[in-house]
């Protein structure tokens, strides 16, 4: 079954226009991505063990993907043995229904969430809010995004496109709405102090905590949560009920595999050796324990993942959502995450969005959000061949006839002429004649069809009066002639 993703909202031209017209956002994105990319390089350069560990982690991830079903069964047995509940969810509606059932049964009114891409993917907040629940994101970046009514613009640092001034404005508004004191200034500690005070109240009042998960360890039945703010711990231990929504791709076989994987999101994502908080969860509170939830539910989300097993795209499931590919991507640096129209932005989003949601969901991403510079392939710690997948998706679009007929015709004619020497020379001569209409002050300033895309923002020299082919023929003639 293919998955289902929330709609993009605005059209691609509209999203693109908005992004390019927002210099503050673009500057913030360029700055934060550059700094993260530099930190990543630095940590690998100064931490000799990192590279070998990364290589083992790649093998561990690929190995787990080769036997996902068996590992999920094993995981399920272990979690259930400790009193947890495990369900498999095909898509967004399944998860929503399940969570709302539990909420109704346990009289839940207020929900706190820690950062989770899986729940973004299924628009869980919306589903719960529509059912009348109060939902609060507790990761600082997600909190900001929630107040702004936006989608995360970066899979790791969701609010990195916002300036401190913009955050302060959002917090001021929230303070007014809640009738509490606003932040005292827009310095980072002052902003976080406000968020902490607000979120503390949400944590204490919550009946249910919803988290994602970075890894699932089959051998031990463990949910692994990595955060930098500690909000994950409060989300999973303070409320009466904890529900974790985790993609089936997060499974790893053994604790030893986990040991190699555990540092990878931090190493490649933020350039830290380890994230600040690593939390291992193996079930609800047991007898004699002082804290932890009364109920623990693990929802294993498919949403189009299972279908990718055994295809050329399978390695995309090895993604650890570190964001390294976003940080080096020149297109991401230029347009930021919102323009992608999906919670998965950057190179991973270009590939994952159409694979999970169908090519019709985001036909623009493979062809328009990638310059094929291969920077992401170099950056990805899991060695996912993102450019190859982007090429494959472009080819699929062509094969399915998803491009304008005029483009298709251009390529067909082009291929026909240029695949033989006489045709190549012929098109050169014709173009030289034809270009006269478009040449002004010795420059090509306009052009028909596809090439018009070039001249929309750039000049080009006209075709040379004598091509190299012609020069060579002339030279040879003059040499043999004399």
């Amino acid at each position, binding site marked *: 079954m293919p998955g289902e993703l929330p709609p993009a909202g605005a059209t691609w031209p509209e999203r693109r226009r908005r992004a390019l017209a927002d210099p503050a956002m673009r500057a913030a994105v*360029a700055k934060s991505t550059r700094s993260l990319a530099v930190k990543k390089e630095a940590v690998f350069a100064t931490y000799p063990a990192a590279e070998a560990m990364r290589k083992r982690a790649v093998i561990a991830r690929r190995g787990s993907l080769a036997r996902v079903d068996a590992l999920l069964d094993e995981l399920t047995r272990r979690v259930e043995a400790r009193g947890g509940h495990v369900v498999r969810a095909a898509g967004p509606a399944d998860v929503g229904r399940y969570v709302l059932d539990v909420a109704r049964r346990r009289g839940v009114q207020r929900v706190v969430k820690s950062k989770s891409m899986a729940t973004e993917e299924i628009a869980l907040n919306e589903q719960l809010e529509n059912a009348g629940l109060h939902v609060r994101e507790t990761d600082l970046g997600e909190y900001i995004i929630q107040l702004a009514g936006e989608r995360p613009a970066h899979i790791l640092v969701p609010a990195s496109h916002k300036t401190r001034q913009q955050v302060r404005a959002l917090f001021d508004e929230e303070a007014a709405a809640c009738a509490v004191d606003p932040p005292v200034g827009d310095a980072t500690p002052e902003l976080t102090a406000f968020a902490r005070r607000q979120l503390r109240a949400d944590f204490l009042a919550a009946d249910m905590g919803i988290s994602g998960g970075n890894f699932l360890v089959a051998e031990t039945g463990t949910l692994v949560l990595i955060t930098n703010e500690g909000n994950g711990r409060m989300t999973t231990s303070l409320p009466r009920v904890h529900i974790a929504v985790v993609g089936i791709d997060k499974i790893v076989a053994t604790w030893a595999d986990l040991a190699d994987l555990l540092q990878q999101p931090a190493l490649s994502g933020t350039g830290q050796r380890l994230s600040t908080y690593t939390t291992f969860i193996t079930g609800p509170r047991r007898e004699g324990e002082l804290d932890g939830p009364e109920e623990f539910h693990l929802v294993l989300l498919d949403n189009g993942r299972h279908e990718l097993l055994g295809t050329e795209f399978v390695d995309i499931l090895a993604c650890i959502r570190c964001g390294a590919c976003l940080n080096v991507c020149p297109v991401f640096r230029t347009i930021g995450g919102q323009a992608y129209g999906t919670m998965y932005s950057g190179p991973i989003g270009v590939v994952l969005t159409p694979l999970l949601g169908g090519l019709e969901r985001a036909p623009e991403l493979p*062809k328009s959000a990638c310059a*094929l510079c291969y920077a992401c392939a170099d950056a990805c710690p899991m060695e996912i061949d993102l450019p190859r997948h982007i090429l494959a998706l472009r080819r699929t679009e062509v094969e399915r006839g998803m491009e304008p007929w005029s483009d298709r015709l251009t*390529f067909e004619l082009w291929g026909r002429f240029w*695949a033989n020497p006489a045709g190549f020379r012929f098109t050169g001569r014709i173009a030289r004649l034809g270009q006269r209409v478009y040449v002004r002050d010795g420059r090509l300033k306009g052009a028909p069809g596809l090439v018009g895309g070039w001249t929309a923002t*750039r*000049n080009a020299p006209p075709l040379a009066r*004598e091509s*190299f082919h012609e020069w060579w023929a002339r030279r040879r003639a003059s040499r043999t002639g004399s």
Partner: protein
Amino acid sequence: MVRAQLFVTCMVDLFRPRAGVAAVQVLERRGVEVEFPGGQSCCGQFAYNAGHHREAAAMGRQLVRAFEPSDAASPSADPPTVIALSGSCAAMIKHEMPDLLERDALQRGRTPATAARWRRRAEALADRVVELSEWLDRQAVPGPEGVGTRAESGGPASSGGPGYAGASGSSTPLKVASHTGCHMRRLLGATEAPLSVLRRAGVEPVELDDAEQCCGFGGSFGLLEPDISAAMADAKLANLATARGDGVTCLVSADLGCLMQLGGRLDRQGDAFPMLHLAEAVDLADRHRLTPADIERTARSQEADPDAR
């Protein structure tokens, strides 16, 4: 005499034949007997990256045919090296073409044996292809100052070419900005070659800040997304502006695509700054004419032989 076949690429052929002419002269000075197979047109990368693999394969097959040694050539001799005037096109041939031709043959209903034969023919070409700066870098041994050295004995250039003569006798070398295309950098891994070739040409190459970021050319991407592509070019040009402030005299690249992107954008903004293909820069250096005035003149002239006018 060592033979080499020149693959000028469709863009050099049509837009900047001058770079091809420069390459011929550079190679001939190094004792290479240059051949130019007339059947060549395009490596097909543009169509390939746009998802049009059938068209790309048709162009790819033609390229393979064009460079295949003819039956008349003595079968015992090793087929000549193919020197490409683009890192990106060289990468297309080396990394994509064997797979592409095999897959396409199967899709067109050819037998697996025929498909495998296309793969082998493409692989044979891929093995022979080398990008120009990599080739030049391999021919020369750095001298004591890294300037003015000649090929290793027995190498193709040992028969008395001029080697790298340097720009002039001036004590402070001319600074030039060097931009390495993404495919050259990441698929060929040739990050050092253009720099060391320029150094041996007697100039000081300067890499821009954020050198590894793409210029925005991107083949079909650049046509489909003119605004994003131009914004990427502008980021690169901002870094070039910094280098210009530090006194670089021109921008050199081994890929014409990047030069047309950056030059075309700059020109649209009404700003002029000389941009040279690496072959042109080395040719000028060979002739002791890598000077601001000659750089300017070469960059302006599109004609095959600027001195003829």
